[in-house]
């Protein structure tokens, strides 16, 4: 077999083995990249920063599932860190049942981080006062449209079974008018539903946290201003982690940043395979001609 044929017929098990190596090794020996912040991430950071802490709330809609957890979960964690660090109160909900467990995990993690550092009850993050986990109401159109008229009517009970009428934060949060920003962290089209139904009808500002594969689909909404900002894939999450740590001096594990070396290496490996295959392809075509 000549070199051209060799280039064109690399066994897929070799490809799988190389991809496994380029994913695993950088996790053990990271490259130590810096993460320059791109405009969509900066826009979302500024939009969250601009929420008046005692006047409006940040709502995070955890519309993702375990399949997209590595890319999207760090976004939810970074958004919660940002909100709690700036004393912005937070509502969390999920349009899909799969997002509930992940939202619960993010809240538990970040609340434990902040309460571990708190020196007084004022510094602590208290459920019902600083944040509320509303849970899930099917189908998605009910909470998306319903929160425009009454959040408590859509969610009479929170995720933990508490009557939402009894929670201090919910007494001050009636509708979308009380939200400074709603960020939908999603592996699907949920941010677009918020734009189509909630923004068009009630004027809520919407931000998006999305997977890298959906970036091309969502960019038009950012350009029109329908999205106040956007986190694009794991890189967007890493950039947000960087902004939160740099601007607010809030520490904590940065899982998206940890994944950047592996992702970079995998992209290079895939590009290398494509280049090799095309060298073989063009060489064979020239030989035939």
């Amino acid at each position: 077999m000549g070199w051209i044929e060799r280039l064109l017929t690399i066994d897929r098990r070799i490809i799988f083995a190389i991809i496994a190596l380029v994913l695993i090794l950088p996790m053990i020996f990271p490259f130590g990249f810096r993460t320059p912040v791109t405009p969509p991430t900066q826009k979302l950071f500024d939009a969250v920063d601009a929420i008046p802490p005692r006047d409006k709330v940040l709502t995070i809609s955890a519309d993702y599932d375990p399949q997209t957890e590595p890319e999207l979960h760090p976004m939810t964690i970074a958004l919660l860190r940002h909100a709690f660090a700036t004393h912005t109160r937070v509502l969390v909900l999920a349009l899909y049942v799969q997002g509930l467990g992940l939202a619960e995990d993010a809240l538990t993690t970040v609340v434990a981080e902040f309460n571990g550092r708190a020196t007084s009850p004022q510094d602590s993050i208290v459920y019902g006062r600083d944040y509320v986990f509303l849970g899930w109401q099917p189908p998605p159109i009910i909470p998306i449209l319903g929160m425009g008229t009454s959040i408590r009517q859509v969610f009479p009970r929170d995720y933990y079974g508490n009557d939402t009428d009894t929670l201090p934060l919910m007494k001050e949060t009636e509708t979308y008018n009380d939200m400074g920003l709603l960020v939908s962290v999603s592996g699907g089209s949920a941010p677009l539903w918020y734009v189509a139904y909630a923004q068009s009808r009630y004027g809520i500002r919407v931000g998006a946290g999305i997977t890298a594969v959906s970036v091309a689909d969502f960019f038009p909404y950012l350009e029109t201003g329908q999205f106040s900002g956007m986190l694009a894939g794991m890189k967007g999450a890493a950039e947000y982690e960087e902004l939160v740590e740099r601007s607010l001096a809030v520490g904590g594990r940065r899982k998206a940043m940890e994944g950047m070396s592996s992702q970079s290496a995998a992209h290079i490996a895939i590009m290398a395979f494509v280049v090799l295959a095309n060298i073989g392809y063009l060489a064979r075509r020239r030989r035939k001609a």
Partner: protein
Amino acid sequence: MKRTLPLAIVLVTGLLGVVPFFVPHPSVQLADELIRNKLLRIISMFALILGLGSLIRHNIEKIRRRREYWQYSYVLLGSLLVTAVIGVAGGIGGTGRLPTAIGGFRFDIQTLYANIIVPLGGTMFALLAFYMSSAAYRAFRVHNFTAALLLVSAFVVMLAMVPLGKSLGTRLSDIGQWILIVPNTASKRGIMIGVALGVIATSLKIILGVERKWLGGD
């Protein structure tokens, strides 16, 4: 009647879905709120029960008839029963009536989700990285100028999506952003407007009863 009644229901519910967006009158908004917060929620609960019933029936039938991979139906039904019992009776984080911890061993619904569903889901999705690498290697060929353009754009965007693009000391990241913002947005907008017009036309045809294929038959 078999055709007229479903058509009438679609006409009424279709109009009820559209009208509140254009008519701000309190009576219309109140009716809309009632439909969404009460009617739709009740219907969706029935849909959940129907879906659950259908899933159970389908898998029991599969086991009874020993259809292909029938053994997995036992796994599905067992998992469904266990998670339902723990979820309903054990409460969130083990706060319900059913004890969900034996010593330090916890098996509440959140623990099950975080330690079974999350790793399984992540593993399945992670396999994509391997298949995509192999597929890109086998299928991505520079047959002509358009394919070459696609390849170069893909490389630039791939590099822009990781910090490496910026670390290379080039303007690759900026070019990647430009590709997404300008040519991508321009083409996507065209497609989206076309799709939206198509959706409006199809929806109107269904609501007004012009399109009846969804009723079955010809």
